[in-house]
């Protein structure tokens, strides 16, 4: 029974109460999957990612430091392992490596690679303080990027963990010669190239190119007046979708640095964004607990918008965590981080 419903779900969300929710876009229904009998805030899901390219298993990182594995085939949680102490901070990134290894990153900056068999990390490195996000490159699985508050973007090669492969330099001082603060909230690797695009808490979007000798951002775009919390790349590679704490979502063009269009509909802050790898639709997860599916045309104006997810899902506010996307649908969910396959 549970297995049937889990196979239908194309988007996965984690909640603040520890429940994993799967949403079936075609049916517009949400299903809850819970590990324990009792809900608890300790189990709040902070990071989600696919464990394998076939998208049959999900990894969930919770506040209490455990990483649980959920199988979409069976519709149940298969294992849980301890990957760190809650005192170090919450998970800010999860990634899966080939050979069943897991990469975890916590807020205090410690990045660890865990192998299946041992309970000690195989590799450990420190990425500075206050890391907000860690993301893995979809092309080169051993490359990860980290960034945070006053912690510039660093790209690490896990095979050489001593020092980062690329550290971004801060922006030039402003016209008063004051140091500009920077706060990297989310990043993404642009496919087909080495570039990384980040969004900051000071409403800027930066593109970095490690291949060029310039360590400062190659492109800087500003959008809105509120911190940008989530970012995603639609297929095509020319644009980026960003969302901020007010629920404003916009598509920015990376060639010229202009705003291509805005998406309406969210009332709360955007917690996560995910774009489909093939179609032109995007998913956002915001604060108010509603799911939005946006179908984007190539026009400037984004019109079509529907609410996905059933009543149960809507009733639950403040959900966090990530969702994986299957290849058929795209959704935007509010309050949930979405992950690409």
């Amino acid at each position, binding site marked *: 029974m549970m297995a049937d419903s889990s196979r239908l779900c194309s988007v996965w969300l984690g909640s*603040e*109460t520890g*429940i994993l929710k799967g949403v079936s876009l075609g049916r517009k229904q949400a299903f*809850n999957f819970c590990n324990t009998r009792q*809900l*608890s*805030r300790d189990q709040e899901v902070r990071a989600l990612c696919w464990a394998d390219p076939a998208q049959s298993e999900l990894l969930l990182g919770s506040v209490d430091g455990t990483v649980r594995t959920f199988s979409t085939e069976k519709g149940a949680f298969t294992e849980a392992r301890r990957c760190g102490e809650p005192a170090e901070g919450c998970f800010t990134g999860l990634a899966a490596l080939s050979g069943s290894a897991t990469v975890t990153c916590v807020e205090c900056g410690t990045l660890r690679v865990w192998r299946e068999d041992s309970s000690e990390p195989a590799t450990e490195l420190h990425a500075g303080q206050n890391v907000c996000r860690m993301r893995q490159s979809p092309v080169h699985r051993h490359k990860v990027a980290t960034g945070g508050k006053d912690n510039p973007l660093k790209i690490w090669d896990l095979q050489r963990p001593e020092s980062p492969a690329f550290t971004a330099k801060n922006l030039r001082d402003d016209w008063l010669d004051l140091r500009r603060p920077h706060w990297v909230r989310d990043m993404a690797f642009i496919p087909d190239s080495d570039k990384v695009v980040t969004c900051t*808490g000071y409403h800027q979007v930066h593109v970095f190119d490690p291949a060029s000798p310039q360590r400062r951002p190659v492109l800087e775009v500003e959008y809105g007046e*509120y*911190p940008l*919390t989530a970012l995603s790349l639609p297929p095509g590679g020319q644009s980026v979708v960003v969302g901020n*704490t*007010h*629920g404003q979502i916009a598509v920015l063009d990376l060639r010229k640095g202009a705003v291509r269009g805005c998406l*309406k*509909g969210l*009332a*709360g*802050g955007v917690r996560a964004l995910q774009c489909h790898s093939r179609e032109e639709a995007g998913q956002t997860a915001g*604060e*108010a*607990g*509603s799911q939005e599916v946006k179908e984007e045309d190539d026009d400037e104006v984004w019109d079509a918008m529907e*609410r996905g*997810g*059933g*009543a*149960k899902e*809507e*009733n*639950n*506010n*403040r959900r966090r965590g990530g969702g994986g996307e299957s290849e058929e649908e795209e959704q935007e969910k509010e309050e949930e981080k979405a992950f690409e396959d």
Partner: protein
Amino acid sequence: MDITEVPVSEDSEGKKKKNKKPKMKSKAGNGEAEKKKKQQQEVVVVENMEKSEPAFPPSFSVSEIKNKQRRHFMFMKLKQEKRKQKMQLKKKKKKEREALGDKAPPKEVPKTIENQRVYDETVVDPEDEEVAFDEGTDEFSAYFNGLTNPKVLITTSDRPRGRTVRFCEQLATVIPNAHVYYRRGLALKRVIPQCIARDFTYLIVINEDRKVPNGMVLCHLPDGPTAHFKRRGKDPTEHSPEVILNNFTTRLGHSIGRLFAALFPQDPQFVGRQVATFHNQRDFIFFRFHRYIFKNEKRVGIQELGPRFTLKLRSLQKGTFDSKFGEYEWVLKRHEMDACRRKFQL
């Protein structure tokens, strides 16, 4: 002088009654002759019309009369006709109802905006476990479990004027354990840690614009959500009051309802006879403060004391007041939300 400029074919009543009655009387002679002609012409035209393809006869409307007095007169007549027809219909229905007696169909309920409210997926189901758990462990759980007593700090924006000061004092009488402090231009971000250190549970900031209080920021102190409201009201005229929260149905409404409830101390034994009511209708929250007296077993008298104002939620932010970098749970987006009149958020 020709009375009318009637086109050849017309069939509405207006044309024939186009002229005012006094004028008709004076031109009675001419009128009759013309009428006959018209009728003949009409007959011809009607026949033509029946033979040809169905076409819309050019109709005449009252608004086409250029003369204001005549137009007004015709319009009044039209209205009277309509009213008469309506009354006749009503009488007929009533008679039918009485005739049917018990078998009559139930009375139809008139449609209102509240009746036609669009189905909102976020309306809370009272048996929803997840919501119950969420509410049991959110920021207000300490209050609702009886662990903390509310202590409220009321302040204003800088340099408040008479009305705002009076409003703050009235609020202080309504809310037990409330203290009013003068703002002195201090930054809220610095005030908040000091309040937390002195065990305050709530911070209310009344914003003033041109000597009139127009906004309110309610911040639940130990890390709680911050709500920002627009306010409209009029000046009015210590025991803890009872609190009535009406009509907060959706998930967002629940959070706001709990925000208001946590302002007042929990006391199951109502000592005083005062009631503070927060009534939500169409996303506006109406606040009233009354005192009730039981005259005898069946009749209650109420007397209104205290301020009377209306609030509209502008934004709800997670965490304490931080308008720049805070994360918003809900923001009022006027043009987007105005699209459907029957859709409400609270």
